[in-house]
């Protein structure tokens, strides 16, 4: 058995891969957030960015394919490792007691699955336009999609914005444990760096989630408005 296959079959190896896929997903989130924040730079900035992304179809599909693989691996490992963990304790304690494990760490599969459900909703909403079709169909004078108007119109709905805000809270729970946890899974969590790494983890989780949430929030509050300032 080669070292790599042995490693990928083991508990430690699969936990490590969980960590690596978690990091890759988080890196995607960082890039995605930077793109999204262009909403604050105005209609032209977002539309240029969106059209530039779409213009390079090969790159776009390569990224989508890669992301899908990473995501599928993360979810597959999450479900199989969790199933093994449940089997490892067939009889539960009558008195269950928790000393140090955070709420976030105890609800990773739940928050993960809810984030997955949110992701499907998000794709149906802003990528496919199945939800909120009218806003999605907003066009610029040249006939191309007006992403800025789509976003602002979409998030004016308190229900839609609400779904996003609740999902971001769930994502925060997931990342607040996940971004502290992977350092240990990968063996990088040396006591000298551990406090720093834990701060980076929680800090990054907070920045990501506050950043994403700022868009529906500012639109709901009327800080970001439709082109021409209309409501």
């Amino acid at each position, binding site marked *: 058995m*080669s*070292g*790599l296959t*042995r*490693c990928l079959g*083991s*508990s*430690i*190896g*699969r*936990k*490590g891969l969980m960590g690596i896929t978690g990091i890759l997903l988080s890196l995607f989130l960082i890039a995605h957030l930077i793109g999204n924040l262009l909403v604050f730079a105005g209609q032209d900035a977002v539309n240029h960015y969106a059209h530039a992304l779409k213009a390079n179809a090969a790159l776009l599909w390569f990224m989508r394919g890669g992301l899908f693989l990473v995501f599928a691996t993360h979810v597959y490992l999450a479900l199989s*490792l969790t199933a*093994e*963990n449940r*089997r*490892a*304790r*067939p*009889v*539960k*304690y*009558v*008195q*269950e*007691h*928790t*000393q*140090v*494990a*955070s709420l976030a*760490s*105890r609800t*990773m599969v739940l928050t993960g699955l809810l984030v997955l459900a949110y992701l499907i909703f998000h794709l149906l909403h802003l990528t496919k336009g199945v939800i909120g079709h009218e806003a999605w169909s907003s066009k610029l004078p040249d006939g191309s999609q007006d992403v800025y108007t789509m976003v602002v119109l979409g998030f004016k709905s308190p229900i839609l914005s609400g779904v996003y805000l609740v999902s971001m809270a769930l994502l925060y729970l997931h990342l607040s*444990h996940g971004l*502290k*946890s992977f350092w*240990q*899974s*990968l*063996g*990088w*969590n*040396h*006591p000298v760096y551990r406090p720093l790494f834990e701060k980076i983890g929680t800090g990054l989780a907070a920045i990501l989630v506050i950043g994403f949430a700022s868009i529906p929030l500012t639109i709901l509050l009327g800080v970001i408005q439709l082109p021409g300032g209309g409501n």
Partner: protein
Amino acid sequence: MKLTLHIWRQKDAQDKGGMVRYEVDGVSEHSSFLEMLDVLNDGLIEKGQDPVAFDSDCREGICGMCSLVINGRPHGPWTATTVCQLHMRAYRDGDTIYIEPWRAKSFPVLKDLIVDRSSFDRIQQAGGYVSVNTGNAVDANCLPIGKPAADQAFDAAHCIGCGACVAACKNASAMLFVSAKVGQFAVLPQGQTERKERVLSMVEQMDKEGFGNCTNQYECEAACPKEISADFMRMMNLDYFKSSATTS
């Protein structure tokens, strides 16, 4: 003092088992937790009933035999204390106490509160040793080992293999135990020859035994009567990756 106990009773490995309620009276706060159970058992024997089976040996916190989950905490409420070293002054008159065995598929219950921990022995046998004939004890400092390495090995060697880490882990993972047994040799010169095979084989055996997977919650570290650090798990993870990458 007078106590209400809810104790897991199970006739044998096949029995389904369940919690049974007992009252004990006249417990001295100076007695140990296990002595309190001895008092309960004396009463049961007098009444012609089957005494509660539980493990213990040294009763001084070094052998790792005692293994009770008390109100949901392996080894009870005191930190860095085995249950044999737990005293009844931790409790008040009228308290209700739940006593359960270690819960893990890899630690099947044999009777009442006694579990079979031979899965730990098999993990040890898979590589938790150094295969050189060490002969007699050599003169001190004959083999130069730095103080930090000596301290680290000694910290890991504190592990008494009781299994509280598995009992406390939400996933019944044995990572803390295995990492201590790997870690006690990992920084010593005697441990280097078999370093790679050791970590690879012990982790393989750990997985085979059906323990769960670590999710970095550190309940194990909090429950460990010998305060084995979760950092040994970090070291074992790294050691495992390096050893996998450089072994065909």
